[in-house]
């Protein structure tokens, strides 16, 4: 090793620490990546290889059969169409539920922060309680309500459940964000002649990008990954992918196909991963926009 300490004033001790630091970071990264790695390599092996090899041994050849089986022909309960129809179901639930709950949260936050009315703080406190109610508590009353509304076992029913449950969180996000917007902005717009929705649409929403992205990431992840509401309130045709995944893993004819299970699990997790990768960029962009002073 060369001694670089002369110019940089770094001692040998500093170097040791640096190496140790990177070692710890690498170990931590490996620790968190390990399960995913196991899933990935298992999904690429065939059943025979899984039985004979060990958990971490690499596949002899890349074999995507399990992926196509998981997608289109694996059996989930009595049907054998893979998880693709349920994957679509999840999108049909998640997209409207995320959009509606985000929009409602934005309007709620706008009112609570910028159009304070008598009791608005109490209203907000009451809404916050919604963040602390465990899912299980509302299962029975919600089933009853969905029955009354005539949307039990339907996609709309699940959208409804997720919107109701999500509004508490989305309102909290938007309310806290809008607290930092000066109330004078709304006053100025009112004097300029703009009404409630015009101010919201023309002035408040355009500056809300960061919090919209945060809310969408949060809501998308929550709703996509939900299993309990999905299993409790969906009909046979409207099951989300999480429920289908469970059924796929629990349905076996003969030997357990770990490779198909793993492939299905990764497919089910891909959209949330994509949202993080894709929206994360906009998130950072949203945070820095306007922060640059001329």
């Amino acid at each position: 090793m060369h001694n670089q300490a002369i110019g940089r004033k770094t001692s040998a001790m500093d170097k040791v620490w640096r190496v140790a630091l990177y070692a710890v970071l690498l170990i931590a990264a490996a620790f968190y990546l390990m399960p995913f790695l196991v899933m990935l390599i298992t999904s690429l092996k065939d059943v025979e290889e899984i039985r004979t090899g060990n958990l971490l041994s690499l596949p002899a050849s890349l074999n995507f059969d399990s992926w196509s089986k998981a997608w289109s022909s694996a059996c989930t309960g009595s049907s054998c169409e893979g998880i693709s129809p349920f994957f679509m179901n999840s999108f049909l639930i998640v997209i409207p539920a995320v959009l509606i709950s985000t929009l409602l949260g934005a309007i709620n936050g706008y009112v609570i922060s910028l159009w304070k009315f008598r009791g608005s703080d109490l209203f907000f406190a009451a809404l916050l309680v919604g963040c602390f109610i465990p899912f299980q508590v509302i299962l029975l009353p919600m089933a009853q309500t969905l029955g009354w509304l005539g949307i039990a076992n339907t996609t709309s029913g699940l959208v409804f459940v997720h919107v109701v449950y999500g509004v508490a969180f989305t309102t909290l996000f938007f309310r806290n964000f809008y607290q930092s917007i000066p109330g004078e902005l709304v006053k100025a717009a009112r004097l300029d002649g703009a009404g409630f929705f015009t101010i919201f649409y023309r002035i408040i929403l355009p500056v809300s990008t960061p919090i919209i992205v945060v809310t969408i990431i949060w809501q998308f992840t929550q709703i996509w990954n939900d299993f309990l509401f999905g299993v409790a309130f969906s009909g046979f045709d409207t099951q989300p992918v999480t429920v289908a995944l469970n059924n796929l893993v629990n349905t076996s004819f003969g030997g357990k196909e770990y490779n198909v299970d793993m492939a299905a699990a990764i497919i089910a997790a891909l959209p949330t991963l994509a949202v993080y990768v894709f929206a994360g960029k906009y998130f950072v962009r949203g945070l820095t926009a306007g922060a640059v002073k001329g």
Partner: protein
Amino acid sequence: MANLVIDNVKKRYGTTEILKGINISIKAGEFLILVGPSGCGKSTLMNSIAGLEDVSEGRILIADKDVTYTSPKDRDIAMVFQSYALYPNMTVEKNISFGLEMRKVPKEEREVEVQRVAELLQISHLLDRKPAQLSGGQRQRVAMGRALARRPQLYLFDEPLSNLDAKLRVEMRTEIKKLHKKLGTTIVYVTHDQIEAMTLADRIAVMKDGEVQQLGTPQEIYDNPANLFVAGFMGSPAMNFIPTKVIEQNGIPMLELATSTTVALPFPRPDALKDHIGKTILLGLRPEMITEPQPHKEGQPFVTTTDVEVEVTEPMGADTMILTRVNDAEINCRSNPMYDAEPGAIIKMMFDTAKAVAFDKESGRRLDL
């Protein structure tokens, strides 16, 4: 342009009364300043005029039209806010034209109006920028441009200069005054800065605890304050309040002034003090009325020269403030910087009581009105 009448306006939050019956009336084209310490209700009154807050009682008339229950957008007023409240997502041009757009003014007219305002305020080169790319002074101009674009009947300014640094504040102050001269608009302007109030106003309303203490021209308020609060609030450095005993000399009430020697000061309205002989009152005397002996004033009525001991001097360039003590009260005197006043020395000072005022010691009530 329009006149403004505020008729017995009261505002209550629960049981606390923020405005306790405000009566102010200004003519079209007048520049009214609401001034007072924080919490005096001046911003609440401003918001009430704008219609952003409802009043509990009373009436507000703009251009002889009762607008007490009219919504803000229909009052035909514009407001400049302390934080400027520029729309952060819009360019300067959009900021200025937004109000016109909301009032459904055609696009061509809007463009013409934006150009006019931009030229007036010299912000034509900034029209494409976003508020975040502007300096404090530029934002201030854009905020004023937004108000000017609609040509409203009444302009409201809510502490528009308090976010600027000292130098820029003085510049913008002059700018606003020029603009008012040029456009002859009716303006209501809130500030807590008494110098801003003195320099800008046609009339000043001094407020405290939800009440108007005095409404008058800057000179009236400066020379003839209605009570101890107004006298102490307006003027910098503040008016001196000297506790003095009223004594009788040759049948005329005089004011006793004790330093190393004791003299009797004459008072311009002695009759007002007749009932107070033998009692102690507060004599109000502005610092510029206590100076070094000036030969041309010698022998004038109400001029008295006596010895004082210098405690501290504060040279300000144009004048030097001399801090001294009379009747056991600290007082500020304004002297020529050339006058020899070393701390600790006994020097001669000239007290000119021609513009002196008298207050009740307990209530702060003016005694000689």
